[in-house]
């Protein structure tokens, strides 16, 4: 039995910081460690729980330093503890918008505003929703995007996983603890997950891998009964029985709160090699930015780089102001 404590540190109600970090996943928490160790007054704002998306992962096996793997929530709370050790203030709230006009930036929360010289956007991404008939109707009613949350509700059921990447296969391996069988559906000719994950999933008897199938609808009266797919080559349609569906078809960046002045590319924040956005003093790190690999390891790298460059930025403006 595990007991998780969300250690909400009551911060003094300051409304002026050197740096504000939006998002408490691995990227944001790493930036927080760098900024706080440079002794800049740093606030991190997280909406839900420390660790971000990683905290919904049952086990992380490819983040170095933990040879036996580490549970996602555990890694999140360890990173949070480390940031707090160096005096990062952490609050749990949702950012409504940011104001990038002027030298002093503003972060707007539902009940207050916070001023900062620099902002790091590390708001991450959320699972991309499937957009086919039936997907809305059964969202949360048989369709899930979080295996750790909902997996055990599908005990002894025959389920479908849509997707073929690392998340799909990893979560599939986790779901096998509960479910009777899994049929993987993907529109590509092969699994794109890591080779080690492919090996593991192919060994399982109650797993069926299907390829080149595009999902066109999710069907059922009161509950999910089946998924209709269409062959990408021949156009042939087929119905796959399903009592539950888990979807891992990529991500959508959390950028709703960003003003139009920040340059995006396909919804993701554009940065240069110093992780600067197009606006002076605003950086982006982790899954929210344009990049080729979205993993905890790369988020931590981003967090360090954005944190380091934000420190340089702050040192520079303080020097000018004192100067």
């Amino acid at each position: 039995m595990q007991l998780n404590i969300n250690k909400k540190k009551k911060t003094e109600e300051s409304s002026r910081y050197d740096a504000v970090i939006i998002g408490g996943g691995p990227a944001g928490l790493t930036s927080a460690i760098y900024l706080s160790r440079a002794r800049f007054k740093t606030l991190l704002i997280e909406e839900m729980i420390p660790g971000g998306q990683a905290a919904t992962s049952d086990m992380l096996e490819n983040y170095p330093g933990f040879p036996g793997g580490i549970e996602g929530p555990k890694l999140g709370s360890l990173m949070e503890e480390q940031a707090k050790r160096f005096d990062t203030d952490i609050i749990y709230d949702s950012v409504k918008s940011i104001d990038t006009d002027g030298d002093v930036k503003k972060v707007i929360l539902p009940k207050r505003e916070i001023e900062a010289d620099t902002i790091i956007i590390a708001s991450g991404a959320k699972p991309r929703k499937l957009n086919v008939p039936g997907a809305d109707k059964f969202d949360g009613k048989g369709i899930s995007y979080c295996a750790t949350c909902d997996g055990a509700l599908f005990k002894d059921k025959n389920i479908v996983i849509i997707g073929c990447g690392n998340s799909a296969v990893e979560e599939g391996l986790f779901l096998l603890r509960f479910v009777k069988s899994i049929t993987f559906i993907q529109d590509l000719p092969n699994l794109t997950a890591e080779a080690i994950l492919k090996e593991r999933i192919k060994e399982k008897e109650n797993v069926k891998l299907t390829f080149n199938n595009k999902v066109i609808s999710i069907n059922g009266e009161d509950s999910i009964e089946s998924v209709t797919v269409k062959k990408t080559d021949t156009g042939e349609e087929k119905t796959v029985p399903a009592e539950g569906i888990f979807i891992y078809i990529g991500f959508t960046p959390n950028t709703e709160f960003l003003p139009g002045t920040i340059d995006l590319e396909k919804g993701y924040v554009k940065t240069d090699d110093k992780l600067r956005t197009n606006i002076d003093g605003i950086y982006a790190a982790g899954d929210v930015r344009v990049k080729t690999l979205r993993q905890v390891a790369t988020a931590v790298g981003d967090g360090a780089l954005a944190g380091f460059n934000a420190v340089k930025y702050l040192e520079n403006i303080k020097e000018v102001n004192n100067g």
Partner: protein
Amino acid sequence: MGLLSKEDKEYLKNEFDKIKKDVSILFVTTDDEKKCEQCDNVRQIIDELTALSKSISFREIDINSEELKQYSVEMAPAMVLLNNGNGNIKYYGVPSGYEFSSLIDDIVDLGTGEIELDDEVRSELEGIEDKIHIRVFVTPTCPYCPAAVRIAHKFAMINPNIKADMIESYEFTEMADKYKVQGVPRVVINETVSFEGALPENEYLVKIKESL
């Protein structure tokens, strides 16, 4: 080994030091051993908490006891957090995993009397005279669930006409099936209104009003 690390205990001690008014919790058990499979886990949690603060008291009580009738407890194991004598805040099943945080925050809120809610939401809640029953279905591994539980429980702290239950879906599968739980958190209000996911306070209140 205990369930809590040294750091966790330290943190909780500090939290519980804020308590000004003793918090009493009834731990509801049953003779049915099968149903009470998880009772020992709850006892373990209770032992850890009572060792950290003298201001928190637990009393074990059988589900069929006369005294409990006033609180209409539906299943065991359960915890009934007494809110000025009202038993309108409940946990059905073990508050483990992420739900442990909900329990801690509830205890601190009840003990300090400081319940953080938006002023407008609070005043609307205070005006509700109808009976409201909120059931929040969760799993202990769901990071989004405590937000849904906490809002329901805070609402119940403000207004005794509101009953709010956390229900652990794996432990009470019949109940979870009855309310068609296939994703958590799932919130069911007065049997008529339901939604999935954690809503902010004001939208939660709208759902309550819809149920009236």
